[in-house]
C-alpha cells in the first residue's frame, strides 16, 4: 500500500467521520466543529488529487470563511441550542434509504470501465489552466456569478439591516 493510499484512507475516514458526527452530535457548536473537520480533510483529498488550487480554495472558503461565519451566526444567536426532536422510525427509514442508495452507487460506479489516464499529467499548471478557462471559455457564467453575488449581498443587507423606524410606521422606509 502506497503512502498516497494510506493518506487517502485517513482523509476519507476523517471526511466521513466528521459528516457522521455532525449528524449525530446534539450541540450546534459541536456540529460546526465536526463539519470543519470534513471541510479540511476534503481539502486534503484535493491535494492528493494534485489539485492544489482547489485545495487552497476549499481550506480558505469552507474551512475558514464558512465555518467561522457559521460559528459567528451561532454565537450571536442561541449558542446553547440543542437538537432535541428525534424520531427513531424516521431516522431508521432515512438511514435505510441512504444505505441502499449508497450500495447501488458503489455497485454502479465499480462497473464503469475507467479509461487509463492518457496524455500529459493532470497537475501541469492546473492553477493557470483554471484561470485561463474561467476568464476565456467560461466568462459568461463567471460574470453572471458576480451578479449573483451582488444579489446575495443586497439580500443580506436587506435582511440584516436594522430599520431606523419601528415596524409599524415603516411606510416608505428606505435608506
Amino acid at each position, binding site marked *: 500500500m502506497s503512502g498516497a493510499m494510506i493518506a487517502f484512507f485517513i482523509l476519507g475516514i476523517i471526511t466521513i467521520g466528521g459528516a457522521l458526527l455532525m449528524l449525530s452530535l446534539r450541540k450546534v457548536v459541536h456540529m460546526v466543529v465536526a463539519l470543519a473537520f470534513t471541510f479540511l480533510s476534503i481539502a486534503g483529498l484535493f491535494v492528493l488529487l494534485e489539485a492544489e488550487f482547489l485545495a487552497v480554495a476549499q481550506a480558505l472558503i469552507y474551512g475558514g470563511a464558512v465555518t467561522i461565519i457559521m460559528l459567528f451566526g451561532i454565537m450571536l444567536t442561541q449558542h446553547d441550542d440543542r437538537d432535541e426532536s428525534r424520531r427513531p422510525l424516521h431516522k431508521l427509514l432515512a438511514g435505510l434509504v441512504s444505505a441502499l442508495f449508497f450500495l*447501488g*452507487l458503489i455497485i*454502479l*460506479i465499480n*462497473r*464503469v*470501465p475507467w479509461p487509463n489516464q492518457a496524455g500529459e499529467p493532470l497537475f501541469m499548471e492546473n492553477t493557470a489552466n483554471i484561470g485561463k478557462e474561467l*476568464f*476565456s*471559455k*467560461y*466568462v*459568461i*457564467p463567471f460574470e*453572471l*456569478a458576480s*451578479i*449573483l453575488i*451582488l*444579489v*446575495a449581498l*443586497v*439580500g443580506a443587507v*436587506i*435582511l440584516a439591516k436594522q*430599520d431606523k423606524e419601528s*415596524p409599524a410606521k*415603516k*411606510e*416608505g*422606509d*428606505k*435608506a
Partner: protein
Amino acid sequence: MDLETLLSYPWRIMLPEFVIVITAALLSLLDLFWKEQASRRPLAWIALAGIGLAVLFLVINAGQPVQEILYETFRLDGFASAFKLIFLLGAAIVFLIALDRDFGQQLPYQGEYYYLILTAVLGAMIAASSADLITLFVGIELLSISSYVLVAIRKHNLKANESALKYVISGGIATAVTLFGFSYIYGLTGSTNLFVIQERLSQGVNDGLLPLIALALLVSFVGLTFKLSVVPYHMWAPDVYQGASTPVTAFLSVVSKGAGFALVIRFLMVTLQGMADSEMILWENLAGLLVTVLSVLAALSMIIGNTLAMRQTNLKRLLAYSSIAQAGYLLVPVAAGIALLQTGEVSASNLFHIVLFYLAAYLFMNLGAFALVQLIGKETEDIRGLAGLYRRAPGKALAMTLFLASLAGIPLTAGFVGKYYILMGAVGANLYALAAVMVITTVISYYYYFGLAVQMYMREPEVDQPLTAPSSLNIVLSVCVIGTLLLGLLPNLALDLIQTQFNLLEVFLPYSH
C-alpha cells in the same frame, strides 16, 4: 484570448440580457440617490421601459439562425427566444401588478424589490438560452437567490419569514441534488456542453453504462423539479405562495416555473437525443424508465395539487395547489417528447409548441387571477373575500370567472385549448393512463374553481362598497382577459405565430462553425 477575439463573438445576440442587466444596475444606482421618503414607483416604470427594450431586441434577434458565444455557453435559438418572450411578458405584468399604489406604500425596500425582480428575470433568461451545464446552473441559481430575497423582503411579516426560510432550505437541498446529478454527468462525459454530453452519453450507453446514466439524469431532474414545483419538490409552494407578496407569488408561479420548464426540456431532450441512435433495446429501457418516472411524477402532481386545493380556504394557497397541478399538466408533453424521441417523431409532432402554448395560456390566466388576488387581498386573502364580487364589481367578477374557467379548462378559453393539445400529445405518444389521470383530475379541479365562482355570484358580500382598482391593475386584467380569449378563440393563429416566428426545434441544432 485577446480583445479582438473577444469582440469577434456575436455579442448582439445577448442584447436583451444586457438591457436587463443595465436596467437593474441603473435602478440600484437611482435607488441609492433617490430621496429617502419619496415614492419609488417611477423606478418600476423605468424597469418596465427596460423590459420593453429587451423585448424589442429579442424580437429583432428572433428571426436569425442559431448563433452562439464562447462554446455555446450562450446560445440564440428559437426555443430560447420563445421562452424569453414569455418571461419578459410575465415580468412586465408582474411589474404592473406591483405598481398598485397602496401596495407600494406598504412595501419596505421598494427599490430593491424592483431590481431583484429584474435580476431574477435575467437568471430565467440565461437558464433558457445556454447549452452549457455551468451557465444553465448559474442562471437558475441567480433566479433562485433573487426569489429567496424577494420572498423574505417583507421581513416584519411573520408568515413571510417562515415561508422564506422554508423556501431557502428546500431550495438549497434541491440545488445540492441537482449538482450531485450534474457531477455524475460530468464524470461520465468529461464535458459540460450539452451536445458533447449527448454524444458521449450515447457512447456510454453502448459501453454498458446505462444504469449510471439513468441515475445521473434522474437525480438531476429530481433536483430541478423544485423550480417546476411538481412532486417530489412541491411542498414549499403553498407556504411560499401564501407568505410572499402577491406580485412575487405571481412571478414565482409563472416566470420561475417557466424557466424551470425551459431548462428541464432543453437538458433532457438534448442529452437524450443522441442516445436514440444507440442500441435499440438499451435505449428503450432508458426511455421507458424516464417516461415512467416523469409520468408518475406528473400524475402525482395533478392528483395531489387538485385534491389538496379543494380543502384550502386561503386564495393564494389554493392557487399554489392549482399551480402544482398545472405544472403536472405541463410535464405531460415532456414525458411524451421523450417517448417519441427515438422515432424522430418529436420533430414531426408539435410537443414543444404545445408546451409553449400552454405556458402562454397559463401566463395570462394565472397572472390575471393573481392581479385580482392583489386587489381583494387588501381586505382579506381568504376565499370569502371574493363573496359578492359580482355585485361590488361586475366587470372584475366576469374577468375572474374567465380566468377560473380557463384554469379549469372550460371550452372557448385558452386553458381548454392548451389542455386539449396536451391530451392529444399524450395519446399520440401512447400515454393513455396519463391522459386518463389528466381528464379525471381536471374534473376534480372543477369543484374548487367553481367554489370560487359560487362565492363571487351567490354569496352576500361582507362590505357592500363597490370595489375599484387602480389603473395598472385594470390594464393587467384587460390584457389577461384579451390574451385568454384570443388564445382560446383563435388558437390556430397563436400556434401559427409560434411556428413561423420561433423554430423551437432549433434546440436540437448544434451550432456548426
